[in-house]
Structures are given as C-alpha cells and as structure tokens.
C-alpha cells in the first residue's frame, strides 16, 4: 500500500443561469455561429465599458446560500491580467480578494463515510472565448461567443483524498447549484468544468507536497481518470526520489495521461488590481433574505423524502437527486404511479443509461411523466414482461409514441389466452419426456428449464404466473 496520501482541491467553474452576459446585453446561449453573440464590450474593443448584470450577482448569492457560504456584504471586481488570445482584452474581469461568497461547506459520502468539504470562496468572473488551432497555417481561429458568459468559480479547500471523493464533491455541488436554480451544470455543454489541484503528502509528514494543477476537465470520466493517473505519476516520482515540479498540466483523453502545459504563474504574476470601470457592489441583509426566500427545495430535503418516506436505498436516492431534471421527473411520475422503488429502479437503470450515452437530455426527456408512469405500471403488473418494457422505452424515445400503442404494435402485450398456454405446456411436457421424468424423480431445477421452454414458445408474451400454474398442474397429473 502507498505511504502517500493524495491531497486534492477543486476549482469548479459553473455557468450561471442568466439571459445575458456578465458585462453586456448579448444573449447567452449554447452553440451558435462563430462571433454572432458578440458586441464591442465582450469582444474587448478599446473604450468600451462593462456594466455588471444584477442577475449574475443574485445567482452567485443563491449559490453561496446553497453551498453554506457566508455572503460578503461588499463585493469587489478585479482585473486578472494574462496574455492569451482567448480573451481579447488581455485581462479577465474576475474577483480577487472580495468575492461574493466566503467560506462554505458541503457534505459528501467520502471513502470512509460522511465527510465535510470546505469551500474557500466562490467568485464571479467572465468566461473566455474558444480557439480552434490550425496546425498547417500555424494560426488560431478565435470565436468570442463565450467571452463574457457569466461563471461562478467555486474554490474548495484541499479536503479530498481520492478521485471518488472528487467525483462525489462535484456531483454534490452540481446538484446544489441545479436545485438553487442558478446553473444547468451540463458538463457536455461546458457549463460545468473543473480544475484539479493535486499533491501527495507522506503519511507521516505535516506539510503538503508540491501541487500540480490539471486544467479544464470537462467530463466526470476525465476528472476521475486524470486524478488516478496523476496520483500514480506522482507516487512513482516520489518513490524514485525525483522531485515534483509545480506546474499546470492538461489531460490527454485519448492517451489517458496528463502532460505539462507551462510553468505555473503565481497570483502575483496576474497582477490583480481593482477593476476601475466597475463600482463594488453592496449586498444588504434584506437582499440576502429576499433571495433566500426565492430558493426552491434543496437537494438534502429531497434526499430525506426519498430515503425516509419513499423507502429508496441511499445509493438509488442519491442517483435520482443528483440531477434536478431527473429528480423533478421522478416526483411527477410517482404522483401518478406511487410505486416509488419500481419507478426509481427504472429511472436509474434505463433512463440514465440513455442520458449517460448522450441519447437524451435529463431535463428534456422525450416522453411525459404520464407515459413513463404507464410503462412502469405495465411492467409491474405483468401487462408486458420486463425485457419488452425496456424495448418499449427505447421505442418511446425513438418514436415518441405511447407505451400501450407500442406494446400493441409490437405484439408485446402479455397473452391471457389460457387455452393457448395450455396447448404449449402440453406440447413441451410431451416433447421433453426426459426432463419431465427427471423433475418427477426429484430434480426440481428442471422445472425452470420447462418454464423456459414454454416462455420461449409463447415468445415471452404470456404471464409467467399463469404459465407456472398450468405447468405445475400438468406435472402434478403425471405424479
């Protein structure tokens, strides 16, 4: 076992849910033709003035309340100078020493039970543009649509010790932000990204090791893989007596490795200073009280409801609450068909599979709660068998037809025609004489084989309970 303990801190960048950018009135939306959601302000033209969007500050306050943060009554905006053409001004408008949110904490399920992760602070800032590199021309094509998209950067303390704890923390923060109604947290669209700070500490040491930062991770899979790789890389270096270099690295998804980007500039190199074009914001007690009243139900309250009142196990309940869209949908479905466990199970196993594969979006499911409730009910009441219920869901996604209509079209409805079942059972009993003899001689496992043969011939459409009753009756006659 390694004698080094990973020490992990995260910087999560969540896009705030506003109509317009942080410092201008350009629309915020995903995608769009390059440089069509820009104006002189967000494109960094000289002489333009940024004007702070009040919704950004409101969202940040709500996020802070959800993350258990103290809300700073005086919030100052700063310039962070850096030179890279993804930001045309050559500086990013951000916050340095007076962010909107100060010290908070969230609870996660850690490697050794419940664990508290401290949040150092959360600040608002503008996003940068996108560069497409052209290796042949040795140029980069700059699209500034994302310049000025409002972000909340949530900086944790280095309280995590494994990739799994980092994952649990991101899922928790993502859930809290979605429930607070301040971010969609869609990693696939870039509205949630993370930078990971990671070092290894010798089990006996008091001081932390040299920190490495892995930038711009935009999927949970990449985050977990990058952390696991980095722990292994740093362990090898330390074990062989080589030094860890303080640097920024990026994760290469194809190769599954982290590679050095550049030597890490420290905060001093950014030469932060007060943004002279934006007056600091005073946040009053009344503002905070008003915004806290607008906060919808929080994730922990739903977790309590699902585990205590609906009887879901903790793991399933956690998966359902993690994404607000899914949790809202679950609530709608159980209002119609209150079979809490069956509905949760179908969502966790089937719907989330399609969500994870990117075929459907959790907050825009291509079927209604009513249709899904009907499908689960049909499956639970053996109107269709379990496998066919899954097939119906697939067709509901593809065709947007109702479950009963699909079941009828595909011939998935269970067969209640006992005469047909009796006929099939008789043919199976007369055909598989050896198995029948074996069963009657005490080999009870052969009953399953005979059941399987009957189901197969009835193409899985007959109710297993009816087949079982008829088959038992036939076999009893032969005793």
């Amino acid at each position, binding site marked *: 076992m390694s004698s080094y303990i990973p020490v992990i801190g995260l910087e999560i960048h969540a896009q705030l849910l506003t109509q*317009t950018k942080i410092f201008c009135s350009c629309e915020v939306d995903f995608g769009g033709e390059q440089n069509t959601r*820009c104006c*002189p302000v967000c494109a960094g033209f000289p002489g333009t003035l940024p004007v702070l969007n009040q919704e950004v*500050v409101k969202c940040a306050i709500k996020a802070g309340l959800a993350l258990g943060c103290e809300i700073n009554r005086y919030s100052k905006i700063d310039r962070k100078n850096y030179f890279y*053409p993804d930001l045309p001004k050559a500086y990013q408008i951000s916050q340095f020493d007076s962010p909107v949110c100060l010290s908070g904490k969230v609870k996660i399920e850690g490697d050794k039970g419940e664990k508290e992760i401290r949040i150092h602070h959360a600040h608002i800032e503008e996003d940068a543009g996108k560069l497409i590199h052209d290796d042949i021309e040795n140029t*980069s094509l700059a699209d500034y649509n994302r310049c000025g998209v409002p972000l909340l950067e949530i900086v944790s303390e280095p309280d995590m010790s494994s990739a799994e704890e980092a994952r649990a923390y991101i899922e928790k923060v993502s859930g809290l932000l979605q429930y607070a109604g301040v971010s969609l947290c869609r990693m696939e669209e870039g509205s949630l990204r993370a930078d990971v700070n990671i070092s290894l500490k010798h089990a006996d040491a008091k001081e932390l090791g040299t920190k490495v930062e892995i930038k711009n991770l935009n999927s949970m899979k990449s985050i977990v893989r990058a952390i696991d790789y980095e722990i292994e890389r740093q362990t090898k270096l330390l074990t062989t007596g080589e030094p860890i270099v303080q640097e920024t690295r990026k994760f290469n998804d194809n190769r599954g490795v982290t590679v050095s980007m550049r030597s890490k500039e420290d905060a001093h190199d950014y030469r932060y*200073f007060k943004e002279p074009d934006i007056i600091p914001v*005073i946040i009053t007690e009344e503002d905070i009280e008003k915004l806290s009243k607008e906060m919808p139900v929080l994730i922990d309250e739903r977790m309590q409801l699902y585990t205590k009142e609906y009887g879901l196990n903790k793991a399933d309940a956690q998966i359902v609450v993690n994404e607000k869209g899914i949790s809202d949908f679950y609530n709608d479905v159980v209002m119609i068909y209150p079979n809490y466990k069956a509905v949760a199970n179908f969502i966790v196993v089937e719907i989330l599979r399609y969500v994870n594969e990117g075929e459907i979006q959790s907050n825009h499911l291509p079927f209604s709660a009513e249709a899904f409730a009907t499908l689960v009910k049909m499956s639970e009441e053996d109107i269709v068998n379990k496998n066919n219920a899954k097939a119906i869901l697939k067709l509901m996604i593809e065709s947007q037809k109702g479950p009963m209509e699909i079941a009828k079209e595909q011939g998935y409805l269970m067969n209640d025609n006992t005469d047909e079942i009796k006929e099939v059972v008789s043919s199976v009993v007369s055909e598989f004489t050896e198995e029948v003899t074996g069963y009657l001689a005490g080999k009870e496992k052969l009953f399953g084989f005979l059941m399987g043969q009957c189901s197969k011939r009835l193409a899985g459409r007959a109710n297993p309970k009816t087949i079982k009753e008829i088959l038992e009756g036939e076999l009893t006659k032969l005793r």
Partner: protein
Amino acid sequence: MLDTALITYLAELSKIEVEEASRPKLVAEMSAIVELMDTMNDLILEEDFQKVGEGVHLNNLRTDVCKASYEREKLLQNALYKKDGFFVVPKIME
C-alpha cells in the same frame, strides 16, 4: 521595483518578443503603469463605502434583458486577419 530582468520575464509570459535595446524604455513605461495600479490598490474603498453608505446596490445594476449583438461583419471589420467569421490570431504553443 521594475528592472530589465522583470521585463524579460513578463515578455516571456506574454509570449511577445521584446528587443534588448527597447527594454530600458519599457522599464520606465511599465513603472508608471504599475505605480498607477499600486495607487489604486492603496485606496481603501471598503471603509469609505461602509462609512457613507454609498456604492452600487443590487437593484441598481443592469437588468438581465437581451439586446441584439453586433453584426458579425461589423465586429470583424477592423480585424487585420479574419477567416470564415473568425478572428485569426497567431498560434501560441503551450
């Protein structure tokens, strides 16, 4: 205190080429800029705001209402290099 070594370091961070002969001149120019920044950082705004109850309150900030963005052609009209609706910039290797 700024000196030519710091200018060299900043040029490296900024990925720009600065000829040795022009570095002393840049020291003077940058010193004036940094002096201005330091003056601004020395202002203790927080105390002033709290004392006189001034500053921008949440409701005085811009409301979140969309306005039309610039036409792309207009946005790109002064760009030295452009292609297919993009600004073209030198590739900076990382």
